[in-house]
């Protein structure tokens, strides 16, 4: 390709070259940055992995009235679980103090027994019964027994927490202490729990502990059903549970719906970022089209001369496309550097996984392709300039 003379010519058209270059640079900074953030939020917007969502339901009960002050939580929960398991369409049933999705209000400090000063915050979920099946957690190793009501000294921790507290070691049997418990608790198993991407909420770790606390007034039953419950099924459930204890409000929801709500902000952010990315691409393409169109209009006579000297229509198109590419490339380089700088500044506040090299290349490739496509429109118009334009005065 006629690279050298084109390069020399561009270097003499400093203004338009600078404009296109800067514009591409800023667009690339925005795109790369927005893409990085989108990745970050997308992982938080997606439902957590390792969870089987089918036929998983959450029934939340809120107890009220003066009678609640004397509520025996354990007895109440066990009776409810017995009833729930008696329903023909319920396969497994468990109880949790709170479904561990999204933001959780109760934060507890914990530390390993051997290093009490190294405090980690976590969210504690008190649980009873077949809560693993109810929550659709698929990978559990060595879980504690399911005897409800019995004082359990074991906890389930997430893998991430295990790695944090006992790095590089097998944590089974190791002891840790929660600030809400006077005694040491042993790690009885590892789970892949329903954690959100840790960066989104401050606290990413979850601890499962057997036995519901005595002063709860609201908790949730997690059900694994044999099939999707019909309206009649829910009515039976409501009737049965209300007859067991009248002063309660019962609300049912699919587990997937709970996850969906929890990912709301993250999903919104992904959408907003995609919108901004789309706008940036639109504006850049329009900019390329207009600046190139003007370049074509300005050089009509020159195009005619080239045609008179023997250039085909294809040669003219190639000329403008090559010029465009040579103008875009420095912009992309500058933009990439700018994006790196911006990421460095941002990383002081938020730890975000940077883009992989492949993603980087794909993004720049997309920008170049769109840039070339935008320049194609005026380039094709340029090719239509007849050779006789060489003789017309500018």
């Amino acid at each position, binding site marked *: 390709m006629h690279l050298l*003379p084109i390069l020399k010519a561009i270097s003499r058209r400093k203004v338009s070259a600078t404009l296109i270059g800067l514009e591409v640079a800023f667009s690339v900074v925005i795109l790369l940055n927005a893409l990085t953030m989108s990745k970050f939020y997308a992982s938080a917007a997606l439902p957590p992995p390792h969870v089987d969502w089918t036929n998983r339901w959450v029934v939340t009960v809120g107890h009220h009235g003066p009678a609640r002050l004397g509520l025996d939580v354990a007895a109440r929960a066990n009776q409810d679980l017995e009833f729930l398991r008696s329903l023909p369409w319920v396969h497994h049933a468990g109880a949790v103090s709170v479904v561990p999705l999204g933001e959780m209000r109760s934060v507890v400090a914990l530390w390993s027994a051997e290093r009490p000063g190294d405090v980690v915050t976590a969210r504690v979920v008190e649980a009873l019964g077949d809560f693993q099946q109810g929550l659709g957690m698929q990978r559990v190793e060595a879980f504690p027994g399911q005897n409800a009501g019995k004082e359990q000294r074991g906890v389930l921790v997430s893998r991430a927490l295990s790695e944090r507290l006992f790095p590089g070691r097998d944590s089974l049997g190791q002891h840790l202490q929660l600030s809400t418990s006077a005694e040491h608790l042993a790690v009885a198993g590892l789970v892949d729990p329903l954690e959100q991407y840790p960066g989104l909420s401050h606290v990413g770790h979850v601890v499962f502990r057997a036995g519901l606390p005595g002063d709860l007034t609201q908790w949730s039953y997690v059900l694994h059903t044999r099939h999707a419950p019909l309206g009649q099924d829910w009515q039976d459930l409501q009737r049965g549970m209300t007859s067991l204890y009248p002063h309660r409000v019962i609300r049912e929801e699919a587990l997937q719906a709970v996850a969906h709500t929890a990912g709301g902000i993250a999903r919104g952010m992904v959408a907003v970022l995609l919108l901004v990315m789309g706008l940036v691409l639109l504006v850049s393409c329009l900019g390329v089209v207009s600046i190139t169109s003007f370049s074509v209009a300005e050089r009509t006579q020159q195009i005619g*001369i*080239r045609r008179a*000297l023997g250039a*085909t229509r294809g040669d003219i198109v190639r000329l403008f496309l090559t010029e465009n590419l040579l103008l875009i490339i420095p912009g992309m380089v500058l933009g990439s550097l700018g994006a790196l700088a911006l990421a460095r500044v941002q990383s002081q506040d938020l730890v975000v996984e940077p883009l992989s090299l492949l993603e980087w290349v794909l993004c720049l490739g997309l920008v170049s392709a769109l840039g070339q496509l935008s320049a194609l429109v005026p380039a094709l118009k340029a090719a239509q300039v*007849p*050779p006789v334009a*060489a003789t017309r005065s500018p």
Partner: protein
Amino acid sequence: MVHMLRMTNIRKVYRAGMLEVHALSGLTLHVRQGEFVSVMGPSGSGKTTLLNVAGLLDPPDSGEYVLGGLDVGRLSDSRMSRIRNQMVGFIFQSFNLIPELSVFDNVEVPLRYRGLPARERRERIERALESVGLWSRLHHLPSQLSGGQQQRVAIARVLAGSPQLILADEPTGNLDSYMARQVMDLLETIHGGGTTIVMVTHSHECAARALRHIHLLDGRVVDLDEDPPPRLSRDGGR
């Protein structure tokens, strides 16, 4: 091949809004290979249109045109571009150099479209610029050259491609008499090498250098010298 250029009954009409201009109305012109023809006529007589059609810059509306033995009436745009590139050289009144390219790059443009290798291109350019005496200005921009120098670069651009036919539109129109004489000398030298030249001009002095004279009036040829006077010998005096 006897005739370089055989135009028969060429018509060309321009439309500007409601206005119709018959630039060429049934023009017939045969130019033999190796001739040096001057074309004169009042403004609006179609001189420039004649050159445009002759050089395949603008297709005629009707009529037959055989260039270098080839019927160019039904050629594709790419074929015509190739023929322009290889067979025809243009010299314009306003030089028409590409302003953002250096002298070297300007002369190189048609050679690149021909797809010649870099070494051959360089040789041709150097030879051409030397023959017009501008080799020292290789890297200058057109804006840094005088009018006469720019025209000589344009001629070098033509020479580098060794075309068989040169079409010149008022080549001395923007030059003072001294430079005009230099350019005409160059043209004569080129003609001496066997190239066919068709030159449109207002100046009788320049026209006198040609060996055949044509007048155009209202888009048609008048005063056609069917039998041109015998050619002077190559190194005949002037």
